[in-house]
Every structure is written in C-alpha cells, then in structure tokens.
C-alpha cells in the first residue's frame, strides 16, 4: 500500500527533517504514528498524501513508484487517499453537505447520484440535522466530524489523520477512534499521527515512533 525506502526530507535548504526512513504499510493495516512534537510526523504524512516531494530515497504508493510514475498521475493517486487535516481545512463558504460532497464532485459523480450517500454519511457521524450549516456556525467537534466524513466519503483505500483528536475531549476522541476502526474493518488502510497515549492504548494497533526524524520503533499491536 505504502512503501518508504531510505526516505530523507528537508524543506528547502533547511536541515533534514526526516532521515533514512524505511517502512511498509500493508493493505488493511491500522497504524499509529507517534513521537514528540517536531519529530516529523506531519512531514511524513505530507509525503504520503503527495503534498511534498522527498529529497531522498524512494516512495511507492499503491504499488507504483512515485519518481517513475510522474506528476500527471498524482491526481488519480490523491483521490485514493482520504486526509483528515489537523486544522480540518474545510471550505468555509460551503455547507456541511457540500464540503462532504466535494470528493465525489471531484471524482466526477453527478449530484443526483451522490446526494443519498452524503446524507447517510453525515447522519452516521451525527450531523443529519446540520446539512446546510456553514463550518463557522459549527462547534470544533462538529467540524472535525465533517472533516472525517469528507475524508471517507469516497471510500479511500488509504486514510490519513493528523492529530484527529487534538481539539476534542477524551470521550469524543474515543468515538472517533471507533469510527476509524469501523472503516478499517471495511478494508481501508489507516494511519493516524498522534501523541495522545490514551488513544494509542485504547486501540490495538501497530505503532511507528519517530524521534528527531528517525523511525525508532516498529511496534506490533500492543500486547
């Protein structure tokens, strides 16, 4: 699904943020990415969701080597990835419904065919009555659920979430983790960056730990 080989990364001429990172995410796996602040977790996710290019090493996604396939094929790869950004990045001027529908519009689905899917998903995350609400009128937790619904609506093969419980109370955090586990059972590969220990301990998943830009541990499901 995702394969990093000796990947290095630096922003511009800055120092190396990631060094010699090698790992594989198997299809259907559920993984936590942990590490202290500034360790490079967000940077690693950006490399996976094709927001940044590595400065060394090689990355292959869904079995294709990024360096070989070239940029023209990236949009198609990006559409197979759902991302929950740490700051949500919702479309401020679009309703909850239109935010969640966007990946389907991008995929070329027509409005009639996706309407039901979007409404179902929004009621699944408990927002059935907020379809027309603009993000600014929603609470942080509600916005987060919209961001998650948008990340999963197109049934991505890979789901990436950056600190998805950063801004919510522990109960909401647990509920969201259950949501990701449900998706994972349906076949989506999940990678979650977090430093929320309680979250990691509550889910039985592999842990990858980054310290100072290096992977230090490839833990197996917590025993």
């Amino acid at each position, binding site marked *: 699904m995702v394969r990093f080989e000796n990947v290095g990364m630096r922003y511009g001429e800055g120092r190396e943020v990631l060094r010699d990172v090698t790992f594989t995410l198997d299809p259907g796996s559920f993984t936590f990415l942990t590490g202290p602040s500034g360790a490079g977790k967000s940077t690693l996710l950006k490399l996976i*969701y*094709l*927001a*940044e*290019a590595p400065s060394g090493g090689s990355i292959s996604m869904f079995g294709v080597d990024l360096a070989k396939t070239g*940029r023209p094929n*990236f*949009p*198609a*790869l*990006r*559409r*197979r*990835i759902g*991302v929950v950004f740490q700051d949500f*990045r919702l*479309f*401020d*001027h*679009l*309703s909850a*419904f*239109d935010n969640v529908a*966007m*990946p389907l*519009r*991008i*995929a070329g689905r027509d*409005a*009639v065919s996706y*309407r039901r899917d979007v409404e179902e998903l929004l009621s699944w995350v408990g927002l059935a009555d907020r*379809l*027309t609400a603009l993000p600014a009128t929603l609470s942080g937790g509600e916005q987060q659920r919209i961001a998650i619904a948008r990340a999963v609506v197109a049934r991505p093969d890979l789901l990436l979430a950056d600190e998805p419980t950063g801004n919510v109370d522990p109960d909401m955090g647990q509920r969201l983790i259950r949501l990701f586990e449900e998706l994972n059972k349906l076949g989506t590969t999940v990678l979650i960056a977090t430093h929320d220990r309680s979250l990691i301990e509550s889910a039985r998943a592999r842990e990858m730990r980054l310290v100072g830009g290096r992977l230090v541990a490839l833990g197996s499901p917590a025993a």
Partner: protein
Amino acid sequence: MKPRALIMPRDKGAGSLDVVIAVMAFLASLALGAMLIAERAAATWQSGLAGRLTVQVLPPENSAIPLQAQIEAALRVLRGTSGIAHAAIVPEQETLDLVKPWLGSDTMVRELPLPRLLDATVAPGAEVDLPKLRQRLSAAAPDSLLDDHGRWLDRLRGLTRGIIWSAYGVLALIALATAATVSFATRAGLEAHKEIVELLHQMGAHSTFIARAFEWHYFLAALVAGAIGAALAACLYLLGSGLELAGIEAVPFLPPLTLHATELGWLLMVPVAASWIALLTARLSILRVLSRIY
C-alpha cells in the same frame, strides 16, 4: 437544496477592482470611438476633395486670346480629356460671391480683373494624366492654371494619417493597460482563494477542474464591468449625436463626435476582450499556482 454549490466563494471587496475594469473599459471605448471617427472623417475629407480639378483662367496677359475664348478653349480641353466625367464653368456671379467677404460687392470690384474658374470632376476610379492635361491647357489657354488640390490633399492625408496613427497608439496603450488591469484584478482575486485551489489540488482534482471552477467567475465579472464601461462610453457618443441633431456643432469643420450604429457595434469588442483576458489570466494563474506545488 441546490444540487451544486459554487466552488468559488462570492468575492467580497473585489468591487473596487471591478470599478477599475469598468473605468479602463470606458477609456478604451472612448479611444476606440475616437479612432473610428478619425478614420471616417479622413475618408470623408478625401472623397470630398479627391477627384476634383479646378482650372483658373486669369485675365489675358501672356497672349492676345481674349478671356472668354480662353475659358471656352479650356472647357473643351477638359471635356475632351479621358477620365473627366464632368466639367463646367463656374458662373461669374459665384466667383464674385467667393470674394465678397474680402472685397465687398462694389461696382468697383466688377472692374477688377478677377480670374474665372472651371470645375471638373474625375470619374470614380479613373486616372487623369495631369502633366499632359496641363500641357494641353496651356496650349489652348495660355493664361490658365490647373489646380488638382494635390498639395492640399497630401497635407490633409498626412494630417489624418497622423490622427489615425496616434489614435491607434492611444488605443493600443489603453488596451494594454486594460489587459494589465484585468489580469491584475483576476490574479488579486485568485490570491484570496489560494487555499481553496490548494485544497482542491490536494483532494485530487485535476487542474482543468480547478481552473473551470474559477475562470468562469472572472470571465463574467470582467464581462459585466467591461460592458458597463463600454455602455457609458456609448452613452457619451449618443449624447454627441443628440447635440448634432439639435443643431449644435461641437467644433466647426471637425466631424461630429458621434458614432454610427455599426461603429457602436465595435464597442462590444471591449467587454468581450476584457472577459477573455480575465478568463485566460485566471486559467494561467491557476495553472501556474498548481505547477509550483507538488
């Protein structure tokens, strides 16, 4: 619920840029109109004078042939020249009328040795061999002078050419400034939506999908602003023709500052050009933004 919400948010605060586009479109329309008027005036002046010949017969000095005989001989020569459609003697009274403002109409004036005039019209499209005509005229009427208005026409042509080229120059400059304004306004508008562009890109949207979501908006905005500017200019020119109908001439001799219906039609080009410039700028800016991100 609407089936499709606009991907691009309604611009707030972009109004001032639309005003700038409208003003530039207004100026461009004025310059375009001025050029059309200059071109029409030049054509009118030239067709009024070109193709006309005048022969003056002075009271005999160089020969013993009497004035009246010389006039008739000159008329015969003119009428016998190929390419001349029409030739006639200007009645003496008209000649007197011509000098009246300067010399008055005393009987004394009648005693003055005034030259007599002959008017000739060249058939449209025909060429008259002027040196040969001049030769034959001086043989038949030694005291005659042929005037083909050539010098006057040349200067007039030079003048109108000058006017037209400067109008072209002004128009080109304003078109350039308008294009720059439209493209600046479009880029400034897009800058405010950079996040949306990047987010759509991140979600796997193709460049064409993203460009389409934005460019149409700028196309319409520039079309509307350009149309308002051009309409204002058209109103001004219509006002000019209103004055003309009322018998008020802005500047004597100069052509009236009005546009004909077909010429007003040319003003439509201004908003159309503005909107396409906006659309292309929007597309190029988006593609450039996208090409810079991974």
